[in-house]
């Protein structure tokens, strides 16, 4: 290596668009969140810089849109019905298409009303099958845990906060599941599906997710949320049991 690699920021510092992050030649994957100009690397968004030895990564802190990636699990909202499939909103700059073939497992019989299977306003857990710069994403519901959502609650968060809700090695998600006992699916497009035992737990979970969303750049957030949930659920668990007693 002839050039000396230099990173100008410390780990976990906030970068803004145009900040000179580093100079030299880094072996890092392409990302829209940095920009290379000559041998200089600039940030393109407001984000958190993570430095790992001789590499860095910009984790964006702002952004309401999801950029589709093939293989991602997403939660879509049915917006329109066509003859051979549905148009879904996946919070991306492009609307997604879900072919009826994938839902029914057979071709559509002429004159069949697709409204019977999925109607406008339904949420669907799906996978992105194909997408590139020239075509809109096409979804598929073939696979485990995919398909129409029948129960639970869908929580909307900005897609850039998804990695934080999951955490390193799923730490945050595991903690949330452990503390609340809810069944949680985090889709890459910033929608979370939660199936909880009762309303109180559900509300606590939503509040916790809102805190994660707001304070996503803070260190040690997992432990803070755990403490918060224990405090909140300590009292509510009693409520639930007392309600259960009155019911019986």
């Amino acid at each position, binding site marked *: 290596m002839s050039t000396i690699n230099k990173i100008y920021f410390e780990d976990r510092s906030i970068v*803004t668009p145009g900040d000179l992050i580093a100079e030299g030649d880094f072996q890092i994957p392409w990302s829209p969140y940095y920009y290379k100009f000559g041998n200089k690397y600039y940030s393109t968004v407001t984000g958190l810089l993570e430095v790992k030895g001789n590499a860095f990564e910009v984790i964006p802190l702002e952004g309401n849109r999801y950029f589709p990636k093939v293989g991602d699990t997403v939660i879509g909202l049915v917006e329109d019905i066509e003859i051979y499939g549905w148009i879904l909103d996946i919070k991306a700059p492009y609307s997604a298409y879900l072919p009826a073939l994938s839902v029914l497992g057979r071709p559509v019989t002429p004159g069949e009303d697709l409204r019977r299977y999925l109607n406008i306003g339904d949420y669907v857990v799906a996978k992105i099958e194909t997408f590139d710069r020239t075509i809109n994403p096409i979804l598929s519901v073939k696979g485990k845990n995919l398909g129409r959502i029948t129960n639970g609650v869908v929580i909307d968060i900005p897609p850039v906060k998804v990695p934080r809700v999951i955490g390193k090695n799923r730490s945050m998600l595991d903690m949330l599941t452990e503390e609340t006992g809810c069944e949680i699916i985090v889709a890459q497009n910033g929608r979370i599906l939660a199936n909880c035992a009762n309303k109180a737990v559900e509300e606590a979970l939503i509040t916790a997710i809102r805190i994660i969303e707001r304070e996503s750049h803070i260190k040690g957030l997992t432990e803070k949320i755990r403490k918060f949930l224990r405090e909140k659920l300590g009292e509510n668990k009693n409520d639930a049991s007392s309600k259960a007693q009155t019911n019986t």
Partner: protein
Amino acid sequence: MMQVQKPRLILDNGLRLDGRRPDEMRPIKIELGVLKNADGSALFEMGNTKVIAAVYGPKEMHPRHLALPDRAVLRVRYHMTPFSTDKRKNPAPTRREIELSKVIREALESAILVDLFPRTVIDIFMEVLQADAGTRLVSLMAASLALADAGIPMRDLIAGVAVGKADGVLVLDLNEPEDMWGEADMPVALMPSLKQVALLQLNGSMTPQEFRQALELAQKGIEIIYNLEKEAIRKKYAEYKEE
């Protein structure tokens, strides 16, 4: 107030009409995320000039045939509110506003990484709440910060300031009388980190030497504004950092 006769722009003590030194800028106030419904927003104040900007997108383009296959389209609207000037301004877009929308759009196109979002559109709205010279640059900066607030990737933030000539003296950040009666007005906007020019216009006359000096003066001002912009973005995250 409109004056019929040209006032003296540089006083005997070398100061300007509003008491500033020739190389002094007006006070700046920046606020991000001021609108709830927009994807990104910013309020930028420079002295008495106040501009609010809002960004929506990137989103699907309608009508479809106006979308570009290889990049995002920018739809930019620069508009002055009827109450922004001393006499009521007709809210219909004027020739000047349409032209400034185009100039600002071209400046923003050089900064935003438009090729990341093919077939989409990004809507940018700027409303001048109060006009006191330099609205095009304040609008441009407000838009640039609103884009940063929306998380849309761009090469650099844009910072800009006008330089001009009043009574033969080069002055930084013109005010209304200097704009009206001065000999030259040159708005300059840069992407400071990349050392690239995003917008440069010149109205009036300057010698080549004056032009060079003016550009240098603008660069000094831009450096200060650029740091204020970055500070404003970071401020949002500093609040929670202490815990």
